[in-house]
């Protein structure tokens, strides 16, 4: 009995120590995440400002506004929807890295999912978030290591790849998505079936791309939660 009590106390202490560690980690993530994002924002905007006002190529505000509004009418909804949609999956630190490094659906999410799969961590848990951060961070660096030399070397390298090999590049995406979907289907087969069924149904509609994603996520979550509730009730 005494031993049992001691173990309970120890376990409580260790979970509260873990909470504190995560709290500390999130605090640092918010600080460095915001600092790096705002630096990137200022640097990015300094380029058009320099072109306009230092080098003197200002095209006029009405022209800039026209271009911006045309572009924003396509992407503005995505600015808000994407970070909210992906937050439960990416967590605090994953959100900061993913939205700075870009290519979330095709690179960051698959890397996070693969890392969690390798370590055996559930998404949405502490271990899941740390694992996702490590996976996405490594992915971001690898991506830049590929991107920089190839752009510096120009398109020369790519043009040496034979044409019949270049033809299969569009198939990289379905290959990634199929593989990652199967990772989940192994652990939660029913979730995989639901997600694919909802996905196919939603993609046959003529909704805009980001609304398809939103609808797909909402529907799958609702169905899965209801399903688990029914299971728990039985």
């Amino acid at each position, binding site marked *: 009995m005494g031993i049992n009590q001691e173990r309970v106390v120890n376990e409580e202490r260790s979970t509260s120590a*873990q909470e504190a560690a*995560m709290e500390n980690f999130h605090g640092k993530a*918010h600080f460095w995440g915001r600092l790096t*994002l705002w630096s990137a924002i200022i640097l*990015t905007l300094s*380029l*058009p400002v320099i*072109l*306009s006002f230092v*080098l003197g*190529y*200002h*095209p006029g505000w009405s*022209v800039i506004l026209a*271009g*911006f509004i*045309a*572009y924003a009418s396509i*992407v503005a909804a995505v*600015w808000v929807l994407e*970070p909210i*949609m992906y937050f439960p999956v990416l967590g605090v630190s994953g959100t900061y890295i993913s*939205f700075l490094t870009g290519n979330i659906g095709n*690179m960051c*999410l698959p890397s996070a999912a*693969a*890392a969690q*799969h*390798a*370590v055996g961590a559930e998404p*949405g*848990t502490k*271990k899941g978030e740390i694992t996702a*951060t*490590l*996976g996405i*961070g490594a992915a971001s*660096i*690898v991506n*830049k290591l*590929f*991107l920089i030399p190839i*752009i510096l070397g*120009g398109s020369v390298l790519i043009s040496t790849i034979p044409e019949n090999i270049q033809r299969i590049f569009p*198939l990289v*995406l*379905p290959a990634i998505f*199929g*593989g990652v979907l199967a*990772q*989940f289907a192994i652990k939660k087969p029913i979730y995989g079936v639901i997600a694919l069924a*909802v*996905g196919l149904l939603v993609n046959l509609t003529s909704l805009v*791309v980001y609304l*398809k994603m939103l609808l797909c*996520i909402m529907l799958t*979550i609702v169905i*899965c*939660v209801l399903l*688990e509730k029914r299971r728990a009730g039985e």
Partner: protein
Amino acid sequence: MEDVMRLANSGVVWIIATLVLTVVIFQAIKFIMLAAGASKEIGMSRGEVHSALKTGAIAAIGPSFAIIIVAISLIPLLGDPLTLMRIGIIGSAPIESVGATLGAEAYGTELGSSGFNYQAFTTVVWTLCLGGVGWLVFTALATKSMSRVEKKVTNKSEKSKKTMTIITTAAMVAAFGNLASAEMIKGFAYVLVVITSSLTMILFTSLANKHQLNWLREWSLGFSIIAGLFVGYFAL
């Protein structure tokens, strides 16, 4: 047009592109260090940390190639440094080319045409940079609030914590269900590739589980992509 490309590849643009890339790489390294530090305290082993890093790196190779192929098509229109800067942060190549087209149109010209002058280039840069900053501003402002909302939900009880895990897993599966099915409706070869890579993943994972092969688990996504591409090559 040639003059414009000289401007597009000039020192100023290079310097800013390099600085932006430096911030992105610095952030990735900083967050890896923070996560590695926290991993010990939440009870992850060193082996697990290495495995997570390795798997993330391997998983990024395939997509990086696909991203670069599209990025290359932007170079003749935007120049090297701007392409690097736009694709290196937030940008996805198809969206960037739409933005560039719209910027040129707003100036009353077309990308790559003889009327594409310094001012037109500047308009394109404004459009891309202002447009791309939208995500960053929202993420910088809202992430803390989103995390507060999430904590409120998960702190309530064991039961809501469990529900949160279900929601997160379902959201992740849904994202890939949607992405995969959007590819599958493109044609027979695409369906075949999705199925092949799924089956390969299932095969390798069960092998890895059966024989306790951790390296196989780390490479399983990479192998699945290759198997999918191999079958797709003959189906195209």
